[in-house]
């Protein structure tokens, strides 16, 4: 077998054969899935609080009924919103909005039926979200007791384990009017649980609002209708795919660009760091000299870079595969849109070229630094400033989403060390072809320069005991004294 391929294979197998590699490979998608699932699991695990409303307001104010109504309205809104969110991955935002509209105008059950029509898979598995609180009838002895200390004492009992069997409450809310405005005293079983407190506050604000409107002579039906109003807003741009109205599909390339930029950044830095550690291990274990007696520095460097590139590719394929399968299963339309974005205007080819160029320039540089070092501490002198510079594109990439043609973004995308990340984020917004081609040429010329520089430094560093610093590194590159 060719020496370069042999070194590449050893490099690949050294990592691919370890359990740690596969664990870390799966950790990212696993945590991604967990990150999405945890809020849902938490919302399902959250207990439903049993709340009793006790009206202490002047007779005839109807405060308790108004608050009860407001709380129930809020609960219904949550259910309708859950229907909309369930529909979006499968039916898109427009489909979700249709489901919401039907649920708002025709009721929750009609909304569920609409969900099943618009998004059959989501509809089949849909369950209404668990309510955060339910309203219980206030215990008769509390209602019968005189307001004040007597009621408070009873509230304490009903919130504790001393409550009669099956009548333990999570909160008792005494609704009252303070200086003519709705207010409340909330007794809660847990001092740290502010769910009831927040719900009651929102309900009181809502009640107050309605009372104010009513006092001003505004029909409550008008208020309700106003609340339901959602403006029909259409955005147009000459750059939209339709030539006019901007759709989510038009915004998708920018999101994809940013995502690709971040993924490239993390893959390239991870790959280059693996290479740094690998070369450092060979240096500290005195293997580099044996390698150099068996293969040229170019063969060693190429083999190692290739081996880690294959490793990075494995990670990319695994993440891409798992992400793609997950996306197709959860949101096939969005998966299709992302696929078509990647396949349009040569974006996928650009991304691959940015990855190759970016990996090459950083991998060889990190390998050359590793050739001088036996421990990560040795490498710190050079790695510190390099990592600081590498954080610059992370900031600029975010700017590229809103203003891809801002001067700073343009300039940064043409600076070779930043090109792979910033131009990847910018490319989907359709910059002039000449800029993309220019950036690619600049990047590959710079990568070639880095290969030359790193090759010289690697050769010198491999047999040297010299302490690594900028002076010694540049001296090795120059081959001078």
């Amino acid at each position, binding site marked *: 077998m060719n020496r370069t391929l042999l070194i590449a294979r050893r490099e690949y197998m050294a990592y691919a054969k370890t359990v740690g590699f596969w664990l870390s490979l799966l950790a990212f998608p696993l945590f991604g899935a967990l990150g999405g699932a945890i809020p849902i699991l938490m919302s399902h695990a959250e207990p439903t609080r049993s709340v009793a409303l006790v009206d202490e307001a002047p007779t005839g104010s109807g405060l308790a009924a108004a608050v009860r109504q407001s709380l129930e309205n809020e609960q219904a809104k949550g259910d309708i919103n859950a229907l909309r969110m369930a529909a979006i991955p499968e039916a898109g935002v427009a489909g979700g909005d249709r489901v919401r509209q039907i649920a708002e105008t025709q009721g929750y059950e009609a909304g569920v039926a609409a969900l099943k029509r618009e998004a059959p898979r989501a509809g089949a598995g849909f369950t209404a979200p668990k309510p955060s609180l339910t309203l219980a009838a206030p215990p008769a002895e509390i209602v019968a007791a005189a307001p004040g200390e007597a009621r408070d004492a009873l509230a304490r009992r009903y919130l504790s384990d001393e409550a009669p069997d099956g009548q333990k409450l999570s909160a008792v809310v005494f609704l009252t009017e303070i200086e003519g405005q709705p207010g409340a005293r909330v007794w809660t079983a847990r001092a740290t649980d502010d769910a009831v407190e927040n719900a009651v506050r929102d309900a009181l604000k809502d009640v107050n609002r309605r009372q104010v409107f009513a006092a001003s002579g505004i029909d409550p039906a008008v208020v309700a209708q106003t609340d339901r109003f959602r403006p029909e807003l259409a955005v147009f741009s000459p750059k939209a795919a339709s030539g006019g109205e901007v759709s989510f599909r038009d915004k998708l390339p920018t999101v994809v660009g940013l995502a690709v930029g971040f993924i490239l950044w993390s893959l390239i830095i991870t790959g280059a760091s693996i290479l740094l550690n690998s070369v450092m291990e060979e240096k500290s274990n005195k293997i580099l000299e044996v390698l150099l007696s068996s293969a040229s520095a170019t063969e060693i460097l190429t083999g190692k870079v290739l081996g880690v590139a294959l490793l990075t590719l494995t990670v990319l394929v695994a993440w891409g595969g798992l992400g793609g399968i997950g996306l197709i299963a959860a949101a096939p339309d969005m998966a299709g849109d992302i696929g078509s974005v990647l396949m349009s205007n040569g974006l996928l080819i650009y991304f691959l070229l940015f990855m190759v160029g970016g990996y090459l320039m950083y991998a060889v540089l990190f390998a050359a630094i590793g050739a001088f070092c036996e421990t990560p501490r040795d490498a710190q002198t050079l790695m510190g400033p390099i990592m600081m510079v590498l954080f610059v594109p992370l900031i600029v990439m975010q700017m590229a989403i809103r203003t891809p043609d801002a001067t700073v973004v343009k300039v940064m995308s043409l600076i070779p060390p930043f090109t792979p990340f910033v131009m990847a984020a910018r490319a989907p917004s359709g910059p002039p072809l000449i800029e993309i081609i220019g950036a690619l040429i600049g990047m590959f010329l710079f990568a070639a320069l880095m290969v030359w520089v790193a090759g010289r430094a690697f050769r010198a560093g491999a047999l040297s*005991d010299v302490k690594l610093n900028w002076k010694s590194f540049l*001296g090795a590159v120059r081959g001078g004294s």
Partner: protein
Amino acid sequence: MAAALTLDGISKRYGGFQAVSDLSFEVEKGTICGFLGPNGAGKTSTLRMILGLQPATSGRIEILGADDGRKVRDRIGFLPEERGLYKKMTPVDAIAFFGGLKGLPVAEGRKRAREMLEQMGLGDAQKKKMKELSKGMAQKVQLIASVVHRPEFVILDEPFSGLDPMNQQGLEAMIRALAADGATVLFSTHVMQHAERLCDKVVLLARGRKAFEGTVDQARATSPRFLELEGALDLAAVAALPGVSGVEVLNDHDGARILRAGLAQGAGGQEALKSAFLTGLDVRRFQIKEPTLHDAFIALTGDHPDDDQSVARDAAHDGLKAEAAR
């Protein structure tokens, strides 16, 4: 006999430090040559130049008919002074990998690795990871890795360092076997006894310069024989014996001294023995001894082979950064 290696006026300079000066010698095919000198004498630098790992500042090297070691690297086996292998690899994988780099098919490398590990008494360690092996075992594995491709020329840099006497003996046997199979062996050491037992030829290096090139016997002949005397002896009286050029005390315990008396070139020692008895010296033991390679080294260079000449070695290594331009 044809030369497998020729060095012609080789010099190596690292910045302001002259590591090797005008070094010339030859190693004939199929022989064992010892490259001897104290630490820091320039041995490793010379070996690296032979391998083509670093360029000579001036001079010419020819190895296996090539003007650059890199052109014939597949025909050379090399064991560096500072040894190490991939800690997580098994010996078989490591040997097959390094054999593969020398052009040996990996499957064949694995087969030979198993056979050679068995021969070296490491059959049980085949499937262990390198990090689980003792230092001696790991060193044997590395030695196997350097010769598994059956090289024509084997370069071993301080191969005996770090080995216990038992393993040193095993290594000597292995070096003899390599030469018996037709390989040319060049090994560096600062321990003269190994060279004395193994070498067809030795090259003595001191402060970067060649001090001697020839057989072990020729080297010994450059140093005079000496007497070893034991008894209640007076230093001045021994020094006055005929043919004695100098005296040093080897041991002095409870009045029983062991003295070493150097003989002048051409002196046989019998005259001194006769005179010692005639003058009534209290001699309990008298022995005429042949010089060792160690003695020869001191006689030839004025240095001690166990001295460390590596004060300037760091400077030499610092100078390696200048080697990038190859």
